[in-house]
Structures are given as C-alpha cells and as structure tokens.
C-alpha cells in the first residue's frame, strides 16, 4: 500500500465490500445449529480423551454442555458462525456462573470466547451447581 496514493487503499476497501456482499448474497450469513450428533462428533475430534456422559443442549442450539462419564470438568461445544469450537471447562477456569431462571451464564477467562449463555429449560439449576467455580464449590 502506498500512502501517497489513496487508490491503493480504496481498491482493497472496495474489494472487501464487494466480497462481503457476494458472500451475504450467496447465503453466507448462515449459522449452524447444534444437535447431539454434531456435538459428540466435534467433542471426539477436539478432545479425543473425553468420555462423554450427560449432555444438555441450549434451546437455540448455540451451545452444548457435556459432563464426563467419570467425573472431572465439563466440556462445552459452542457455535462460531457455521462452525463450532470446543472447550474443556475445568472448575478453576470458570470465573462466574449466573443462573437466571432457565438461562445459565458461564464466564471464563478465555480471551477469544469468555462468555457462554445457554437456555436450558428445567436443567439450568443442576448444571449451574455442576459448574460452580472452584472456590465457591468447596
């Protein structure tokens, strides 16, 4: 990019606008919805040693909490656009758990995705107690 020549900045800016419009027009704003099979597949790929036990999927399909079959921290599978990512949630990683009726809010220190909100009708309180941060859980 040449600071003396504004065209060298305008071309990339125009290109970005054109590309984003094309992606949007071709259905690029889609979002994946988690189901049990997808959550388990990604869990097996990203955390291969994690033996899955009980699972709770957010009502909007945006995240899933998975308890291990044999104790220890939980895993969370969450949607990022049309892909998903996975985190192992050890109690020491969790800074705050907030329960608001059916809604469970989990905060961690993760710089790239540190806040998870799940709507878990009928299950939120039980999962909140499972995830209580270490110092408060003791």
């Amino acid at each position: 990019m040449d600071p003396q020549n504004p065209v060298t900045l305008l071309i990339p800016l125009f290109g970005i606008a054109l590309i984003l419009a094309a992606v949007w027009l071709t259905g690029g704003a889609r979002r994946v919805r988690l189901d049990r099979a997808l959550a388990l597949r990604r869990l097996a790929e990203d955390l291969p040693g994690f033996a899955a036990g009980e699972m709770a999927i957010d009502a909007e399909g945006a995240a899933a909490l998975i308890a291990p079959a044999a104790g220890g921290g939980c895993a969370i599978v969450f949607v990022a656009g049309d892909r998903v990512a996975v985190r192992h949630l050890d109690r020491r990683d969790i800074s705050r758990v907030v329960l608001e009726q059916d809604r469970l809010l989990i905060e961690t220190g993760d710089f790239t995705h540190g806040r998870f909100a799940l709507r878990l009708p009928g299950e939120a309180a039980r999962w909140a107690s499972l995830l209580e941060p270490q110092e408060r859980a003791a």
Partner: protein
Amino acid sequence: MTLEPRLADPVQLAVPAFILLVLLEIAVTRAQRRSAYELRDTAASLAMGLGNLVVGLAAGTGAYVALNAVWQFRLFDIGYHWWSFLLILFAEDLTYYAFHRLSHRSRFWWAAHINHHSSQHYNLSTALRQTWTGGIFDWVLWLPLALVGFPPAMIVFQKGVSLVYQFWIHTEAIEKLPRPIEAVMNTPSHHRVHHATNPRYLDRNYAGIFILWDRLFGSFVAEDPADPCRYGLVRNIGTFNPLRIALHEWVAILRDLRQARSWHERCVFLFALPGRSFDGSRRTTDEIRAEWLRAAALPVHPSTSSG
C-alpha cells in the same frame, strides 16, 4: 546511508486479482453447493488482510532500512541479473521455509502466525488472514540474504512474489495438479495439509513456493483422501473480532509468564514448542501426534473387530 530505490510491489499489483479470484471462488463453491464462505469469518479474514497492509507500511519501512544497513557489509556484489533473480527465488524460498517452520515450532513466532490458521474455513480469503504483529520482527530472518549481497529491493520484491504465489493455494476448489507439479511446487493439496489439524497433518508442509524443502528436510506429508483435512487450530478460537484474533496468543503468553515460577518456565512459555505446559493442561502437536500414533498402533480386540 541512502536507501536503494524499491522495485514494484507485487502484492499491491496483485490486489485486484485477489479480489476477482475470491469472487470467482465464491461463485464456484456456490455452484457446487459447498459452504466455503461464511460472512463473519470472511469479514475477519479480510480485516486481518487490510490491517496487515496498514501495519506493513510502518514495519516494512523499518525492515527496509535494516536490510539496507546490513547490505552495506555485503559479502558479494550480486546486483541485478537474470541469474540473480533466479538465485533469490530459491534463496528467499529457503529463508521462508525456515521462517515458517520456526513460526510453528517456537511460541514467540507462533503468536504472530497463529491468526493465519485461526479460521476453520479454507478458502482464498483465508490467505488474506495475515499477521498484524509479525512484520515488526520477522524481517530479521531475511537479513542474511542482504549480508550475502542480494540487493534489499530484490529481497523485498521476492518476498512479495512469494506472498502472491501463496494466495492461490488456499483453496479446496483445486484437488490435485499433475504429478510433476505436485512433486516440485507447493500446491493447494500440500497447503491444505499444512492448515489441517488432523494429527497426521500437524506441523507439516511449511513450504512457500517449492515443496522441495519439505521433502528435503523431512516435514512433507501428502494429503490422504481417506483422512479429509479439518481446518483451524487444535484449540479453535470462538471469535471473529480481528483485534482478538491478532492478539490472543500474545495475551495467553503474558498470562503464562505472570504465573511462571522460574526463568526456565518463562523461557519455555515464550520460546518452546506451542502447547508446552507444566501442569498437563494442554498438549504440543508432537504430543498429539504421538498419542494418535499410539492409538493407531493398538491391536483391535477380536471381539470388537468383526462387523
């Protein structure tokens, strides 16, 4: 010290072609009913590319001054000839290989490079997901070329050529090229392997233009259709915020350094293989591969092997 006049910037010249090729790939993948592009992922990649251009303005000037300073002490007067352009094609590509390998094997360098691997998509826009921080220091590895005697303008030009070459290999639209090309050149197939997180593919195929270096230095793995590439990071990020994409590994390093109990631990957290930890909370790519190999070598129990 007077700076050598620069040659044309291949990246700047290629920007319109980058835009057209991305649009073409969007159309092709749409026609194939594949979900190659996602809006926020693409926006993040393009923002990273634009940011890299802006940061490159300042960092590039500093690097150019450094190259010129070292060039004053050059061992040979190589100058501008047809053979010197041929020579630097290979010399710069070998330098790139070393830089790229280091960028995956030392956490300090990885912190600047990780953003390029942070998309779970693999398309031409991924090529533009470039570093915002690497340009501040990565030019150090190119100084030996100036010391040998390659003119600084030629080095910068060839770096641009390499970047332009590496754009088109970020695609799934091209499967395999004819065998002689796959044998010598870095291709979409070889580079898909490089971006994959499957244990067999981790930290392989560091090539820029010529795949020969990987074959020579034992880091080559061919794409196996039986093990389709899964793209992204071992621990994928969950953000499309360009600032977080650019800085997240630096933040992670700072957090580790704060908790380190000795200088040995600080050095490991800063310079050792990414993923090294002292509490087993994360794994290196070598450990992931070793684990996978152990699992693959396990004999299948007769009672579970039959269908």
